[in-house]
């Protein structure tokens, strides 16, 4: 076999923009200025950069993984969904997502950043947006009326065929699966107290597993085979340090991190021993928002307190992005 030739282009010296060399940990929504802002620098030595140049104020946003793109909701009354591309380049552009439902409150993205699910509480509708970011295509709106209660958690399947939804109604919660794969029918997956966060992880079978944070019971559950016959496994609870869990993520090593708003800690469940360790957070974590740098997550939004990041490369640590003065 003829060896494959490697031709190396030394782009390091030819990069078009100076700013292109600046590492960016991620892009976050600044609710105070209603803008998207890059976190310039690496966790531990970073600053909030200037707002990205968008033609409208932003009310909600979801970054499409490493695709240099995002779906954002403008802050006008219509709450129009937009696709922003070239997020960290000088040719950033925003296009309305034609056919997208209005009044979007929540956006969920699959891990690959290829499929998004939009949710509008006011219209009780869901909508899948596939082909991201290059060829966005919106599905017909899906009624969420079969899902009872307040929707607090969304997790999009890797293939974009369904979304897991955690909802709570009068102190009783449930997780539903809905999407094209279920013929847009809300299927009850399991019931529990108050599902505040859901993360998907590869399952033993072809069906993914789900990690669910139950805020009501201070429990984190592993739900095996969400697409088939779900099996519930308790990963951690209050005795392990779970306290007011509001967000979960699955790290590359398959360990599970939990944002405990109650105890202001981050918990990590070892994938092998299932033992949980915690580290303190100098603030109240309210999210585990995946950022662009591997193993970097936002724990809150910038504002009155410093933006806090979880750096899980490899040991867990919480770092701040200096507060603006």
């Amino acid at each position, binding site marked *: *076999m*003829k*060896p*494959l*030739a*490697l*031709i*190396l*282009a*030394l*782009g*390091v*010296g030819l*990069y078009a923009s*100076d*700013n*292109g*060399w*600046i*590492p*960016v940990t991620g892009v976050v929504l600044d609710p105070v200025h209603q803008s998207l802002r890059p976190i*310039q*620098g*690496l*966790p*531990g*030595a*970073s*600053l909030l950069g200037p707002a990205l140049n968008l033609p409208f104020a932003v009310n909600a946003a979801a970054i499409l993984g*490493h695709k240099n793109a995002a779906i954002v909701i403008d802050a006008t009354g219509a709450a129009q969904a937009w696709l922003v591309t070239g997020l960290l380049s000088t040719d950033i552009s925003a296009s309305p997502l034609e056919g997208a439902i209005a009044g979007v409150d929540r956006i969920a993205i699959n891990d690959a950043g290829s499929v998004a699910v939009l949710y509008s509480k006011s219209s009780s509708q869901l909508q899948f947006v596939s082909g991201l970011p290059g060829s966005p295509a919106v599905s017909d709106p899906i009624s969420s009326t079969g899902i009872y209660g307040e929707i607090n958690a969304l997790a999009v399947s890797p293939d974009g065929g369904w979304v897991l939804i955690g909802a709570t109604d009068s102190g009783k919660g449930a997780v539903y699966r809905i999407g094209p794969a279920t013929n847009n029918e809300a299927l009850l997956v399991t019931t529990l107290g108050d599902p505040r966060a859901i993360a998907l992880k590869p399952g033993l079978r072809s069906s993914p597993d789900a990690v669910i944070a139950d805020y009501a019971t201070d429990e984190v559950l592993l739900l095996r085979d969400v697409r088939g016959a779900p099996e519930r496994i308790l990963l951690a609870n209050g005795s392990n340090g779970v306290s007011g869990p509001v967000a979960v993520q699955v790290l590359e090593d398959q360990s599970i991190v939990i944002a405990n708003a109650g105890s202001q800690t981050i918990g990590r469940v070892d994938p092998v021993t299932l033992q949980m360790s915690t580290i303190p957070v*100098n603030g109240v974590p309210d999210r585990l928002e995946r950022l662009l*740098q*591997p193993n970097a997550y936002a724990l809150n939004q910038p504002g009155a307190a*410093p933006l806090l990041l979880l750096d899980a*490369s490899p040991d867990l640590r919480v*770092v*701040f992005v*200096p*507060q*603006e*003065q």
Partner: protein
Amino acid sequence: MKHSFLRMSILALAGSISAFATAPQYVLSYFVNPGGNQTAITTGVVLPPTTIGTTSSVTIVIFNQGDGNGSIAGVTGGTGNTFQLSGLPAFPTTIKPNTNVTFIVSFTPTSRGQASANLVINLDTGAQTIPLSGQGVGAAFTVQNITSSPATVIPANGTLSFPNTAVGQSATITMSITNNGDAAGSITPTVVGSNFALTNVIQQQLTLNPGAFTTFNVVFTPTNIGALTAQLLLSNSITINLAGTGQGANLTFVETIGSTQTPVANGGTILFPNTVVGSTAAATLTITNTGNVATSVTSVGIPASAFSITGALALPLNLPPGGTATIGLLFSPNAVGALPSTLVIDSKTFNLQGVGSAPTSLPAISFTGVGNTAAPLQQPSVGLQMAAPYAQDLTGTLTLTFTPNSFADDPTIQFASGGRTVNFKIPANTTSAVFGQASQVQFSSGTVAGTITLTPSFSIGGVDVTPKPAPAETVLIASSAPVLRSLQIGTQTATSFELLITGYSTARSVSGLQLTFTPSAGSTLSATSIPVNSDSAFSAWYQTTASQTVGSQFTASLTISLGGNATAVQSVSVSASNALGASSPVSVNLQ
């Protein structure tokens, strides 16, 4: 001579009475002094009308027209000081024929009207009782307040009362003085005392004939609050009391410091004790309305200074007569030395004086939490600890400075609260600095080799009490080999892919990249390890302004073009190096 002639006529008359014996025969007469007509005493002696306080007199003549010696045993009579006898001979006295004995009866009336007495002459022929009479005459002034309606008479030693009058204002009463007596009299209106005065007085000394009158005004202009009196003297015998009440509010001020109370007047000084800077001294100022009219205080203020008013005053402060209000004052010296100010209460100003004393030196200061070295991308915590508690509240600022080994600063080196300064406080009688709510504050170590210096400053009430030299802690960020954080795939095509290499180099130098390719199963690569000289590219980057915004961090882009299908490459790993060594490799899977 005239009187002798008359005597001879009387003698002729008397001779006819005593024609037959050698016996005394008396003829009694008198004449008004001086030089009045001699009048035989028939029914009595009438003295001329006499002004009160003055004296008139008559001379009594006892003539012996008989032919024998007569004798007078004595003469008595008179009433006290009104009628008095003088010029009497020594008794008994002999009156030879055709001789007489005279003496004087004087009349000094003490009041107007008729006065009378008896004169008894004890003659040898028997006692002769002679009635004496006289009329006292004089002026009689009637004093009236004619401002009142009807006019009211003010008796001598009576009181003329004025209406209550505000201090500084005036009330006027017109007086009428009429001479209702039977002789002219003089008045000299004069006020003895203050707050009262006369106006429209025609003449300072005025003689009023009987029936005449004059008027003038008495003006009451109180300069003080409360009952005020004076006297109006019209003559030696007529005094009118003047009375009025000055009305107004009167605020008095008493400062209280500790248990000591000291009155303080408008323009006076409230002196606070010497106070250590950073501590406080309190005082109160009590306002009392000692007047007889309610008043209020509408403004109380102290200009920005070491003095302040404690609490919130509910203005206006209403002060009825006898009412009080208290104002709390605080002296919080923010400098050493005299710190004068003023307290202004409506139109009154009080000087505030206090002296700020130098605080005592701080105990030894040490740093906690932070070491002398820190790795890049770290966020160490630092705290401040005093060797012993301090008696006063301390505030301070911890300042971070960074001295890079290279020319470039690292803006990511900041405190968590943002910036390179952070405020703290050390409450009195404690030893640890408090940053917000925490005992320590974090800062970023950045990614540039150099020295971070932490220097605290301390102050008490705005006075710098930082020890000299100021304590300082240095944290060294060492120069080292590059560190790669991540390797990611950027733009990818069928025949090329882009490597995004993210890391930092505290020395701000990356001279080389080492790329190692792992072929996919079944594939063979012409080269699996390729060194790349990156020195010039990184040197250029580190000289840009953009690079200095993130210290020594970088994301380098390398585009790899393949002579065949990109699927032949399973993974790539990259390490970076400089003069200090090489980084650990980072890798990424392409498949």
